[in-house]
C-alpha cells in the first residue's frame, strides 16, 4: 500500500538539478498538479526528458516559463516559442531526438538494454557523433538509454498499490517512463480500492510506482 503524497511533498522529491521524465503529449496526459507544485516550489536547473514542452503556460510549458529547465531532451518544441527562444539564446540546452527514438531510449533505460539500434536518423544531423553498428550488413545508429532520477507520470486511475490505468491518447510516454526512473510519482484522475482495476487492465504495475499523489480536492 502507498501513502497518498501531497503535491508539495512530491515537489520536494524532485531536487534542483534533478533529471526528470515527465509524461504527456502537448499537455495531454501530463501530471499537471505535480508540475504546478514544482513551479510553486521554485524548482531550478532541471533536466527534463519529455516528448514536448506543450505551450507557454500549459503543462511542461509552465516549467519552461518559470525558468526551471536547464536542459531538455525532447522531440518537438514547435508550439512553444519560449522553449525555442531559450534554445536559440542558449539559456536552455536542448537535445532534439526523433520521437520514436526518444521513447525507445527511455524504454531501453527502463528494461535494462544497452541501447537502441535504429535506422531513424541515419544520414541526417541526428547521426552526428554517434556509434554506427552493422547488423547483417545493414547500418543502424546506436542511441543510448535514458534514465531519470524521478519520473512524473499521469494516469486515469490508480489503486492503493499504484497499479495504473490510462485513457485514450493520454497513455503516450507515461507507461514507458514508469520503468525508467529511480523514483516514480504517479498522479491519477481517480484513486480506487484494490481489485477495482482488474489485472488485465493494469498497464503500469504498482511495483514500478513509488508514490501516488493524493486525490484531487
Amino acid at each position, binding site marked *: 500500500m502507498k501513502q497518498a503524497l501531497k503535491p508539495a511533498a512530491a515537489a520536494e522529491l524532485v531536487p534542483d538539478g534533478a533529471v526528470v521524465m515527465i509524461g504527456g*503529449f*502537448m*499537455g*495531454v*496526459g501530463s501530471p499537471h498538479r505535480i508540475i504546478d507544485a514544482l513551479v510553486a516550489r521554485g524548482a531550478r536547473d532541471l533536466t527534463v526528458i519529455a*516528448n*514536448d514542452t506543450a505551450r507557454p503556460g500549459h503543462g511542461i510549458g509552465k516549467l519552461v516559463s518559470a525558468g526551471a529547465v536547464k536542459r531538455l531532451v*525532447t*522531440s*518537438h*518544441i*514547435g*508550439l512553444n516559442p519560449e522553449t*525555442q527562444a531559450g*534554445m*536559440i539564446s542558449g539559456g536552455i540546452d536542448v537535445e*532534439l531526438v*526523433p*520521437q*520514436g*527514438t526518444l*521513447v*525507445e531510449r527511455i*524504454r531501453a533505460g527502463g528494461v535494462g538494454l544497452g541501447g537502441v539500434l*535504429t*535506422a*531513424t*536518423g*541515419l*544520414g*541526417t*544531423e*541526428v547521426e552526428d557523433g554517434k556509434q554506427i553498428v552493422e547488423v547483417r550488413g545493414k547500418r543502424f545508429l546506436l542511441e543510448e538509454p535514458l534514465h531519470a532520477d524521478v519520473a512524473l507520470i499521469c494516469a*486515469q486511475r490508480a489503486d492503493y498499490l499504484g497499479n495504473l490505468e*490510462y*485513457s*485514450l*491518447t*493520454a*497513455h*503516450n*510516454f*507515461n*507507461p*514507458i517512463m514508469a520503468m525508467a526512473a529511480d523514483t516514480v510519482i504517479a498522479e491519477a484522475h481517480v484513486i480506487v480500492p484494490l481489485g477495482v482495476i482488474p489485472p488485465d487492465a493494469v*498497464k503500469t504495475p504498482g511495483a514500478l510506482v513509488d508514490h501516488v499523489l493524493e486525490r484531487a480536492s
Partner: protein
Amino acid sequence: MDAKHLIARRVARELEPGMLVNLGIGLPSLVATYVPAEMGIYFQAENGVIGLGARPPEGMEDPDLTDAGGGFVTAVPGAASIDSAMSFGLIRGGHLDVTVLGGLQVDMKGHLANWKVPGRMVPGMGGAMDLVSGARQVIVAMQHAARGSSKIVRECTLPLTAMRRVDVVVTELAVLHPREDGLHLSERAPGVSLDQILSATEADLIVPETLPEMALG
C-alpha cells in the same frame, strides 16, 4: 477549390481500402475529409490512437483524446489506444501503410526536408524522421512553392528528414514520383500547363510524352 484542398483530395486517391494511415498535422490532416468511411481506412495519430475520427460534438470533447496537433478528435468503433512505444513500433516496424507529411523541400533524389530551417525555425523533428524512415509508403503533400521559391529543388539545402526516397509528392500543380533516375512528373493539376509546372520548379523533371490531368474522384 483552394490549393490545400486540391492537394488533400488528390492524396486521398492514393489510399486503398483497409490501409493504416498516418496524417501529419496541418495540410495532410485535410486528407481524411476526402476518404469515404466505407473504405475502411484506419487513421493512426502517433500520439496514441488507431481509429482517429472527426471532431467531436461541441461540449462532448474528451481532454484525453486529441490528435498529434493537440486538437480534439473522436475515435471510431474498433479504435485502439496505444502508448508511444507501440505507436512508433508500428511506424518503425513497417506496419504503417502510408504516411502523409508536409514538406519544406523535396529534391531530385526524392529526399525530404521538413523539420528545420537553421537559425530561423527549430521545431524539432517530432515523429517525422521515424515516419519517413519506417512507413511503407511516404506521400509528401505540400504547396509547390513558398515565398516565391520552388520547394521542388535540385538538392535539399535544408537538413534532411531521412535518407529514404519518398514515394509520391502531391502539390497544387502536379503529382511527382521520385525514382532511381530522377523526379518523374506524372500528372498536372486541372487547368495547369506543363510550362507552368516547369517554370515553377527548380529541379529537373522527367516528363512523359503525354501528361495526364489529376483525377480527383
